[in-house]
């Protein structure tokens, strides 16, 4: 009989379904095959013209029906696709899920194509006044829906039959991890036996790219796109904007076992800590990230020696990778030099609101498959960052526990600890 309560007497939270979409493909099988063969999904941008842009590459998902239909519809389709895979794997009813929904998704805005089309459907007046006048004469509400922050979750709730008021959240680049954390907490509080946590981001529009570019956050290594994302390398010059989605079905271990579900892994702990230093930079001593890692370990009831592998945030920005190394070496001490730490973003880019969920999905697969995906493009190691980044080639290894990091603008730091077995 498995222990059903954790070290703090709370219900143990199991994962019974996993779904994922990235620029590498749809579903776990395609993604895992690409990821473990060191294949990059980064490619030249074709969705919109790249005139005047300093960055002309991305990890956009260009192969879905909604890929050219704007951020809102694409984010929905990404979320729906990943969730469908996860719920199907769990064996639960995909039209009557019966637990709450936590969706990490990008903030919404009226798409420029809609703005242009509304504006040019009328010749009178100008600017906002014209848009408002046209808006109040609209006969359809599809455009309206794209501007409502709760609309994607509302549609997903209909699609999957989730229970209650769905929560849509943003903690910037940590959002996907926060969605999982909210699900874990709801199960631990005994509010539900299961939760559907999704991170989805289809918001790689021209304006989004330009905004990140103006903050000097993006790589401009356009010539060989698949080489642009190079976490922990000396010549890393920014992240690569990308899209994707990850979904987990979370269940109390007790409920999962009672219905005979396959347990794919355990969500052992979550930790977070906000940074009050700067809007885009982290505190120079790394203390908030360090605190988030330690909080996740404490929540999981594991010591620092009990983590086998770190799925790094590893964005490939000069700032993140330096800070992440500082925090990991502070927490893990000398052991960090011999612990595998790899970045999925070297292959899929930074999927922003989805990243924490996508990388949790890959972390769980790493344990299940006993294969660690590599950090590719590791050709010029940064001498200031001494890590075993699993350079360029996958590694076969027994992995029983994973720490997955997510750090974001606005001082957001969220870490997840996952385990292969309930213990």
């Amino acid at each position: 009989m498995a222990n059903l309560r954790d070290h703090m007497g709370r219900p143990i939270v199991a994962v019974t379904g996993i779904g994922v979409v990235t620029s590498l493909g749809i579903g776990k099988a395609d993604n895992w095959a690409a990821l473990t063969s060191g294949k990059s999904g980064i490619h030249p941008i074709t969705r919109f013209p790249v005139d005047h842009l300093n960055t002309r590459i991305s990890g956009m998902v260009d192969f879905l029906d909604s890929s050219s239909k704007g951020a809102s519809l694409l984010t929905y389709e990404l979320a729906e696709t990943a969730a469908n895979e996860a719920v199907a794997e769990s064996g639960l009813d995909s039209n009557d899920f019966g637990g709450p929904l936590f969706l990490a998704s990008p903030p919404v805005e009226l798409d420029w194509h809609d703005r242009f089309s509304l504006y040019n459907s009328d010749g009178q007046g100008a600017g906002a006044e014209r848009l408002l006048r046209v808006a109040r004469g609209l006969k359809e509400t599809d455009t309206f829906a794209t501007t409502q922050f709760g609309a994607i979750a509302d549609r997903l709730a209909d699609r999957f039959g989730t229970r209650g008021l769905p929560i849509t959240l943003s903690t910037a680049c940590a959002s996907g991890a926060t969605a999982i954390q909210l699900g874990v907490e709801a199960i631990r509080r005994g509010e539900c036996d299961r939760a559907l946590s999704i991170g989805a981001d289809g918001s790689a529009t021209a304006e989004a790219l330009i905004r990140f570019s103006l903050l000097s956050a993006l790589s401009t290594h356009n010539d060989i796109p698949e080489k642009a994302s190079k976490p922990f390398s000396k010549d890393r010059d920014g992240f690569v904007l990308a899209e994707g989605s990850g979904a987990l079905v979370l269940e109390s271990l007790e409920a999962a076992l009672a219905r005979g579900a396959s347990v794919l892994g355990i969500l052992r702990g979550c930790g977070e800590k906000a940074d009050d230093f700067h809007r885009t930079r982290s505190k120079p001593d790394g203390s908030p990230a360090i605190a988030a890692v330690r909080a996740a370990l404490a929540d999981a009831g594991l010591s620092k020696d009990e983590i086998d592998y770190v799925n790094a945030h590893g964005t490939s920005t000069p700032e993140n990778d330096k800070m992440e190394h500082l925090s990991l070496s502070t927490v893990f001490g000398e052991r960090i030099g011999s612990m595998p730490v790899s970045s999925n973003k070297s292959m899929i880019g930074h999927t922003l609101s989805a990243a924490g969920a996508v990388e949790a999905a890959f972390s769980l697969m790493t344990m299940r498959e006993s294969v660690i995906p590599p950090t590719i493009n590791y050709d010029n190691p940064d001498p200031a960052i001494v890590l075993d980044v699993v350079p360029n080639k996958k590694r076969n290894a027994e992995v029983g526990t994973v720490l997955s990091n997510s750090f974001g603008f606005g001082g957001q730091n969220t870490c997840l600890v996952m385990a292969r077995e309930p213990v």
Partner: protein
Amino acid sequence: MSSPRDVVITGIGLVSSLGEGPDAHWQKLAQPGLQPVIEAARFAPYTVHPLPEIDWNLQIAKRGDQRQMETWQRLGTYAAGLALDDAGIKGNDELCTTMDMVVAAGGGERDEAVDAAILAASESRNDRDVLLNEKLTTELRPTLFLAQLSNLLAGNISIVHKVTGSSRTFMGEEGAGVAAVETAAARIRSGQSTHILVGGAFQTEHSDMLLGYELAGYLHRGPWKPVWQRQGAEGGGLVSGSGGAFLVLEQREHAESRGRKIYAELGPVVSGRARRSRGELDAEIAALLKQAALPSRKLLALSGASGAHTATSAEKAALDANPAISARGFATLTGHMKEAQFPFAVALAALAVDRKAAYPVFDAATEKPFEGIPQTVLATAIGYHQFEGMALVNAA
């Protein structure tokens, strides 16, 4: 019976067209026949309830911080500061660094001048995608992006007020405010947290914020009317207002151990998602009222009704059907504040409980007086488009 893990309200930060702070709001709202502050010209044919004059320096000491934000983030950071001050937490490092935070947020302001210039140029250009790249790469202020990001209201609260225990931002109009309060309360009740800052802000004096409603025709047009009296008038019935509401929620034991004044106890918080296109709204509101376990005595209700025709008439019918309920539609006096609407309703409910008095009617034609001391007050937010929530607020 009180319990050490009760959720109590120990800090309230409010800003609306009526002024700032709980005292100013109480004094204004307790006046019978108070007239709303409205701005009918600037966004005609729409009326809005504008922000009062605010000295940002009082809560955001550094000019550099103020410059990094647009009005929405400043407003939220300001209201959050008021709540922290009110709870005696501001400036207390130990309490701030262990404090959790859930913010209900939409998006920040776009640069209207840049957008208008791009739209004007689009009339004579067919290569609109290239036009976008050309204009956005040269005319956008780099830091404006951060002023637009939903989670950067929380980020600014961390930076300015040093609240760093945890930081989560919920999105989704009124539902975000409901979920924020509901989740915060659940975390305290279960022992996952001891003190949480929760709330939101809405800055309506920007064309995109009006557009967000008007793409589905939700805004009221023509002469202003009280929130319950807009059915049949021109437009969709909703009059928006700028404002913010933050609450400090605390575990009773935690508040008592530091000797803080308790405004009220936060009772059940309930939420739902009616599939309105299937006609489920009436039943959902009835179910939430039942789930909230209303006391059998007479009950004051602070309704967040927006004025949006369908949702407001459904809520009014449900409240009218219970003769024990005396409702106050506060949007009559503040306008609809979207993500901040539910935290605002809870704050006004807590004030009434604390002051041991009901608000006079906000609309003499449709609301009925409440005599006596309100022991329990209902707060509601039935979304103008989707999502519903309620809470009961009890005497401390």
